[in-house]
């Protein structure tokens, strides 16, 4: 055939010039015929060109299997051009499913052992792309030799070929494991990268290999550290990060090696937490790509548990991310910001978060509000700041605050005696402005009820002097009571507050009495009951009113704190259960747990079920008189005795509050054995004048008035 065959690019042009699919097919079929003929008897000089054309046509979807043999011929040719195209053809047309593929094994072997670097490269590349298990077995030793060749160009390819071989024939691991140690000392990034990949493969396949390679953890850490500290390298850096491909691979291997192995984890921990991840993540935070910013925030959030200080460094950037219009990003930023609050930055962070709270999307408000309140609780520098912060949250996002926020705030205020005047004034002003935010209204109502006298009389240096008239206060509470925006619970607060004011204010109580009696026929049953009870208090038990409506003592916080203590004592109990003798410390610990109040109180302390304990238990039970109290002291009563367990009651009447009777239950175990499952419960008959029935009902099970904030339940 003397007609010079079409050059590859010319053919491509011709194919692209075809107007229709049919035309294209025609062109290609014609050319393929030429190519076939050329393969049969064509000249070897142009064989590579013919194959190249065939490969192009193959990519368009046309059959090209008749070129397979030509690949072999070209690979066997000494010309580099031929080899280049031949190997490419082998990778595209030959795979382990074809029998023909084994025929190139010999050529590859020759090229690996005798070829120039470029040729060795071609052979290795082909072997690692389409090498079958048999080929790998045949050529393993050749590849092994190349691992130690001086040229990095060949070595880096040999290492990755070894990876492929192990994947195909896992037994070859034995050949390729030994050279790894030495290869790790390489400075060439490509070789290092391949070696780490190889080690990963070895470790993933064999626990013995994993164990073996744990000893290189320090070395890996060192490599990584060097990467990070040597700064910018134009060759290997991407966006200022030195060779991220290598870094990622090292990290992956470290993860494998460190899994469930404390020593290795220790070695790498220092580097990872302090230098590596956090810095890179910090930079990611500034990335313009949203995906990356999201991943960065998520990762930092995970990190903040284990290395708080490292993540702190990025606090300013994280706070900026709060401004993200994308909600998923701002949510992450919020979570992270909350996690970053600590005692030193709490003021600044709260400021930022309060700002965010004002403008954040609705679905984030609840989390933000609770987050701020929690942070405030943990790190508040001063009580006043704490109260202010909660107040601000209630004013900004009152509707989104969790239910226990009210209880927490009243607890907080109650405990800060020096701030009572301040709190009640601030709350009064806030309430006067806005009676729609329920939690705020509830707290304010409670406060006004409790400290109404301070509102009117006390002077407070901390804020501007406030001139409040009694009538104004009553009017405000009445507004709350009547407002359709007020929830039933809120109205309950308001009514009780009004009632309390009857003892705090100096004026006569006609107005209050009027309100109370009106609500005696309120449709809301709860409110009605209260009103009736308060009314009765006015009419029949007026002598007790002052005592009953006295200022609330501080309620011990229920919930997690106490549970922890209970758990601790339980643990201690188990240890001690082994000892037959009940010990004093045990008892006193329980005493601390249950010792709630100093001084007189009308608090509703429902008795807690006791943890099993071997020792004695003391329970303070505070109760109100069920009858006009006799003046004489009541003698102790032994009420129960069986099998060594004794229960006795003692009665004390505190002199300051004659209306109060303190009953103490003492349980002692005089038997030799342990007492388990000891539960002490008290049943108290209802007092129509004093008890607020529903509250009692649903608090007794938990033992702690956590559902009912103390103010609602001033007596038991």
């Amino acid at each position: 055939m003397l007609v010079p065959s079409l050059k590859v690019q010319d053919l491509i042009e011709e194919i692209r010039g075809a107007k229709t699919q049919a035309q294209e097919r025609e062109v290609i079929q014609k050319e393929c015929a030429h190519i076939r003929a050329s393969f049969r008897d064509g000249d070897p000089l142009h064989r590579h060109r013919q194959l190249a054309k065939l490969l192009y046509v193959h990519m368009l979807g046309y059959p090209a299997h008749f070129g397979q043999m030509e690949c072999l011929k070209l690979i066997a040719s000494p010309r580099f051009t031929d080899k280049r195209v031949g190997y490419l053809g082998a990778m595209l047309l030959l795979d382990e499913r074809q029998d023909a593929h084994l025929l190139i094994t010999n050529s590859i072997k020759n090229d690996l052992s005798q070829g120039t670097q470029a040729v060795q490269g071609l052979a290795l590349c082909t072997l690692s792309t389409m090498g079958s298990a048999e080929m790998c077995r045949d050529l393993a030793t050749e590849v092994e030799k190349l691992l130690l060749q001086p040229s990095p160009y060949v070595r880096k390819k040999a290492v990755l070929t070894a990876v492929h071989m192990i994947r195909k024939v896992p037994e070859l691991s034995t050949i390729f494991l030994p050279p790894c140690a030495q290869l790790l000392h390489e400075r060439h990034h490509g070789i290092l990268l391949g070696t780490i990949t190889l080690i990963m493969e070895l470790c993933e396949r064999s626990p013995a290999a994993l164990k073996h390679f744990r000893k290189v953890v320090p070395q890996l850490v060192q490599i990584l550290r060097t990467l990070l500290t040597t700064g910018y390298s134009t060759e290997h850096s991407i966006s200022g990060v030195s060779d991220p491909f290598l870094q990622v691979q090292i990290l992956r291997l470290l993860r494998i090696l460190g899994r469930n192995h404390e020593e290795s984890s220790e070695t790498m921990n220092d580097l990872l937490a302090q230098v590596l991840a956090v810095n890179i993540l910090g930079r990611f935070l500034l990335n313009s790509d949203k995906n990356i910013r999201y991943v960065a925030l998520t990762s930092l959030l995970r990190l903040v548990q284990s290395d708080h200080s490292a993540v702190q460094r990025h606090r300013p950037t994280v706070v900026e991310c709060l401004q993200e219009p994308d909600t998923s990003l701002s949510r992450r930023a919020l979570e992270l910001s909350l996690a970053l609050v600590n005692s030193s930055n709490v003021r600044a962070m709260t400021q930022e978060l309060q700002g965010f709270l004002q403008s954040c999307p609705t679905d984030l408000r609840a989390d933000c509000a609770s987050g701020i309140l929690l942070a405030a609780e943990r790190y508040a520098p001063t009580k006043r700041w704490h109260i202010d912060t909660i107040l601000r949250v209630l004013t900004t996002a009152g509707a989104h605050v969790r239910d226990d926020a009210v209880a927490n705030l009243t607890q907080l205020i109650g405990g800060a005696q020096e701030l009572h005047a301040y709190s009640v004034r601030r709350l009064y002003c806030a309430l006067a402005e806005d009676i729609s935010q329920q939690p705020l209204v509830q707290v304010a109502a409670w406060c006004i009820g409790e400290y109404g006298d301070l509102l009117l009389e006390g002077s407070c240096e901390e804020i501007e002097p406030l001139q409040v008239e009694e009538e104004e206060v009553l009017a405000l509470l009445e507004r709350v009571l009547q407002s359709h925006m007020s929830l039933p619970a809120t109205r309950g607060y308001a009514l009780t507050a009004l009632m309390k004011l009857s003892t705090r204010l100096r004026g006569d109580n006609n107005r209050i009495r009027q309100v109370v009696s009106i609500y005696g026929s309120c449709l809301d049953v709860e409110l009605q009951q209260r009103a009736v009870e308060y009314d009765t208090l006015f009419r029949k038990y007026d002598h007790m009113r002052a005592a009953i409506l006295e200022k609330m003592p501080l309620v011990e916080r229920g919930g997690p704190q106490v549970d922890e203590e209970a758990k601790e004592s339980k643990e201690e109990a188990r240890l001690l259960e082994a000892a037959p003798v009940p010990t004093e410390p045990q008892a006193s610990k329980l005493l601390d747990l249950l010792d709630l109040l100093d001084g007189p109180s009308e608090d509703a302390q429902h008795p807690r079920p006791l943890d099993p304990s071997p020792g004695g238990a003391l329970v303070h039970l505070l109760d109100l008189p069920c009858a006009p109290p006799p003046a004489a002291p009541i003698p102790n009563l032994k009420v129960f005795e069986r099998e060594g367990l004794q229960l006795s009651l003692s009665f004390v009447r505190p002199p300051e509050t004659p209306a109060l009777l303190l009953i103490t239950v003492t349980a002692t175990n005089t038997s030799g054995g342990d007492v388990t499952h000891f539960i002490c419960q008290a049943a108290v008959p209802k007092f129509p004048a004093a008890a607020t029935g529903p509250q009692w009902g649903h608090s007794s099970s938990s033992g702690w008035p956590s559902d009912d904030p103390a103010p609602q339940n001033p007596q038991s």
Partner: protein
Amino acid sequence: MYTRIQHPLHLSMQFMLLFSRQGKLRLQKWYVPLSDKEKKKITRELVQTVLARKPKMCSFLEWRDLKIVYKRYASLYFCCAIEDQDNELITLEIIHRYVELLDKYFGSVCELDIIFNFEKAYFILDEFLLGGEVQETSKKNVLKAIEQADLLQESQNEEWGGLSEDIL
């Protein structure tokens, strides 16, 4: 049904495809052994799936039991299939590095360069990835290797009395 080759534990990249906005294949690199028929089917389906993506969508999608990482550069889609536990972001970097290499080699690469010099595109890829893994992280080294191979080709051809212009 895509019968995935069961690799017992780990294989970074299963394949890389380059295709145009019209769905025409411009390069296919398979790191797993599959029949021609299977490759065609996968290609067809994946091309359809990727082309159906809207512009602002992120670069990652789940397809069968693989993760597909793709990015469009002008009229070409670069599409990689990686294993589920692999790192998507680093795969994006791999794609980008490959594009940079092509760009450096061809000088402001466009789709036509890849069409008319498809073998070169393969050669360059084979200097960057090997067996589905990154073999060389230095751009410079990859380009140097290609340069040297090209030179070798030319010089040999002169030696051997072949055509010195347009080798292929």
